[in-house]
């Protein structure tokens, strides 16, 4: 597919990498020649230097023949104008715009048709939604929902006193007496798709498939005590903080935001009347103590500096805050983070890429294409959702008799809204929704690609 990506920032680069590897023809537009040069050195794409919102640049990028325009520059106005212009030149063009400013939010949604937007991506908003989901389900590091909410992949870290520490995977379901399947394990920053003899160790992050009903049983049997989150402290008054406070407010959670900049405090205070806004330096441990950090159920570090977020989260863990969430802009730092107690890690970049990748795959939605794609473990593992059609192979065959490729695992089958964790004796039928987990090195676009031969 011919795709134009405008903006070679964090999201633009990540998308370039992902989409180029999937075989799409990428044209990247950016104002900075050096940025383009650097990306061109790594990926097989073409680049154009210029303003993505200008007609000349878009025409040079051959927008007439492109199928998708992803506007991910750091300016909302440019993104909207780029989509508007692109759509005017090529009415068949699909457009995705990143729009971050809350002031444009309602505008972008209501004026969708005028701007020709097919999808509006708001990394901050997406991050806020994700964080609020985690806060409502304390105990898990991450939750991905499939099959309209009936199946989930959750992840958690194994602690020294966990009942499953030093347990071999084949004994795992007995140990916790719940029907679950371990689909991936992250150890020392690398994701592995383990076999039955794999032995779990302290500090491993494991990704587990379970049906939604079993989630609370899983938490209980794992010995993870869950207390409902009531008081949340947010460090940093960024856009995510704003969206998150809104989300949490609606679920009746008390929110305090610490922000250093008096002007931002003023703005937040006027936009969020129900929220406690505290002016002060969240990086000062004295200050956090004075605000009574240990009394909160959760701390969310959302400042613009990754390092600062890590330090604050470490401190919160040390002060026994039950739930800690850390925002990182550069998720590639994650490798060293596994050994640190920083709780759940949220990467807005990864989240918006996920959303866009899902859209791209859906665009190719021909027979057998994926319903959705979820990236887990910094994108090292993909969980892909397929609806089984008549043309798919091995329908009504028990899974143990199906030759799947290496590093491909069928993890759950949802039949008529009822999810079942895949075992050797499971079968899938036409119309079922099947979730497949695979490592992201060999992208799978068609369900039949998972089979050997």
């Amino acid at each position, binding site marked *: 597919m*011919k795709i134009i990506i405008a903006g070679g920032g964090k999201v633009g680069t990540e998308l370039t990498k992902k989409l180029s590897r999937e075989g799409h023809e990428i044209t990247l537009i950016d104002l900075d020649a050096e940025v383009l040069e650097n990306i061109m*050195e790594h*990926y*097989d794409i073409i680049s154009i230097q210029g303003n993505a919102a200008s007609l000349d640049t878009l025409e040079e990028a051959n927008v007439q023949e492109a199928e998708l325009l992803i506007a991910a520059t750091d300016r909302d106005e440019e993104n909207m104008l780029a989509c508007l212009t692109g759509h005017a030149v090529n009415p068949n063009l699909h457009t995705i715009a990143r729009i971050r400013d809350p002031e444009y939010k309602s505008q972008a949604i209501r004026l969708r048709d005028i701007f020709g937007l097919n999808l509006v991506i708001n990394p901050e908003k997406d991050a806020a939604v994700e964080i609020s989901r985690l806060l409502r389900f304390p105990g898990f590091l991450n939750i991905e929902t499939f099959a309209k909410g009936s199946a989930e992949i959750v992840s958690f870290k194994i602690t020294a006193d966990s009942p499953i520490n030093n347990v071999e995977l084949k004994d795992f379901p007995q140990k916790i007496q719940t029907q679950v399947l371990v689909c991936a394990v992250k150890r020392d920053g690398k994701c592995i798709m383990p076999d039955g003899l794999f032995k779990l160790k302290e500090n491993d992050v494991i990704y587990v498939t379970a049906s939604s009903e079993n989630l609370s049983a899983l938490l209980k049997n794992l010995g993870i005590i869950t207390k409902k989150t009531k008081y949340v402290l947010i460090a940093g008054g960024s856009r995510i903080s704003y969206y998150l406070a809104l989300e949490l407010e609606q679920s009746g959670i008390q929110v305090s935001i610490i922000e250093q900049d008096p002007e931002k405090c003023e703005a937040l205070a006027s936009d969020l009347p129900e929220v406690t806004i505290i002016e002060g330096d969240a990086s000062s441990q004295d200050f956090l103590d004075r605000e009574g950090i240990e009394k909160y159920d959760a701390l969310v570090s959302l400042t613009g500096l990754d390092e600062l977020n890590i330090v604050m989260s470490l401190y919160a863990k040390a002060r026994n805050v039950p739930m800690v969430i850390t925002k990182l802009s550069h998720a590639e730092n994650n490798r060293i983070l596994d050994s640190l107690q920083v709780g759940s890690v949220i990467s807005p970049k990864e989240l918006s890429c996920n959303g866009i990748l899902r859209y791209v795959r859906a665009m190719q939605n021909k027979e057998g294409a994926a319903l959705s794609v979820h990236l887990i473990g910094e994108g090292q593992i993909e969980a892909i959702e397929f609806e089984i059609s008549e043309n798919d192979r091995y329908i009504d065959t028990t899974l143990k008799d199906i030759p799947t490729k290496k590093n491909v695992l069928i993890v759950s089958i949802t039949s008529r809204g009822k999810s079942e964790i895949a075992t050797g004796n499971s079968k899938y039928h036409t119309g079922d929704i099947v979730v497949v987990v695979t490592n992201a090195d060999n992208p799978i676009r068609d369900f039949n690609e998972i089979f050997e031969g």
Partner: protein
Amino acid sequence: MNFTKIIQVFVPLLGIELIFMIPAMIWAMIDHDVHVQIAFIKTMIVIAVVGILFWLVSRDAEDGFYAREGLVTTGMAWIIMSILGCLPFYFSHEIPSFIDALFETVSGFTTTGSSILVNVEEMSRGLLYWRSFTHWLGGMGVLVFLLAIVPLSGKNEGFTLHILRAESPGPSVGKLVPRMRQTAIILYVLYFVLTVIDIILLMVGGMSLFEALCTGFGTAGTGGFGVKSDSLASYSPFIQNVTTVFMFLFGVNFSCYYLIFINRIKDALKDEELHAYLGIIFVSILVITLNIRPLYQTTEESLRHAAFQVGTVMSTTGYATTDFDLWPGLSKGILMILMLGGACAGSTGGGFKIARVVLLLKSLRRNIHENLHPSEIKKIRMNGHIVDEKVLANLNGYLAAYVGIMVISFLLISIDGFSIETNVSAVIATLNNIGPGFAEVGATCNYSMYSAFSKCVLIFNMLAGRLELFPMIILFARTTWTRK
């Protein structure tokens, strides 16, 4: 420097060279030239052995391929291709000296067309075919061919860009479409189609298949090896005119053809370099036609010779229809200047490239302007786009290297004691991949009288000229070979 990865790239390259020797071998079989067949078989065995060795060495190459690997790969690939490519001449004893055989092959691959052969007609057809075919392969670039047919993959998939840049001529080489492989295929398809049209027209004009193939390859690659000692002088005016037109066509940037192909004719015709190219052609032909009018019987004849010689020199082909060494000083002077200018960037032609000349003139004009209005800020534009100051700085570096190589090689070959005109034109003709020069290396003469040392200098010049200097210069830099 990741040498194993570099060697890995050479493996399919040798495969390509081996396969392309087969048609030449077939000509030798048709003619029952047993010694030529044996020479080709010996060469193929050598290539196969070297290829297997390379494959063994580089099986577990690690990823990691950046700009400098791209430059070194290109420089070394061309040297290896030339050394192996010259073996048929050497093994068959039709060119008994190894240096001569190498000179002839480098001259072929670099599309120079300078020859050391005293009598071309004595050569067997298999070898002549191979000699001309090296032009065709070298014209668009053998690594580009590799990019078109072999999917070179790796963690760093963008690395192929460095190869394209190092092998394709011009100050700012880019892709035509996002995928490198697609870009390379487009370039080769355009090249192939234009070549086939040329060959068909030559056959319509009465050439035999063999002559048409060799002449077509020479024209397409802007090489200049002919199958006759008098080049194209004895062919009909029709054939000469067809060749003139195609020499001009192959001197145009191929992205113009691509734009025409995808129906963006307006954009193609807006290209500033193309305007300059056509302008120079027109003025030069006009002046030379008037200047040489007294030497020929009709205006048609002088126009035909003027156009042909302008085409051959400007596209850096190096065919001849007449001995232009006998022309008056003005005409010879113009030809000498055209030699320096060369063809368009992104064409199969060599030389300094019109795009660079245009940029240099623009930057010179800015310098003059800045002297008069010191506080004014001016940007240089090309085709409406602002030219990055870095490109201009690179251009100055390129000019310095270009002049430097020219001066040093001129001094080195002067040791042999030939006239200044001979030496200067020999250096210019090899560095710009033209072929014949003036005086003792003129259109009717050849390079056989130079010493082995001078031939090596000229071999370097041809390679440096074809690869735009830096891939060759970098091979002589100490940091390329030392671990750091």
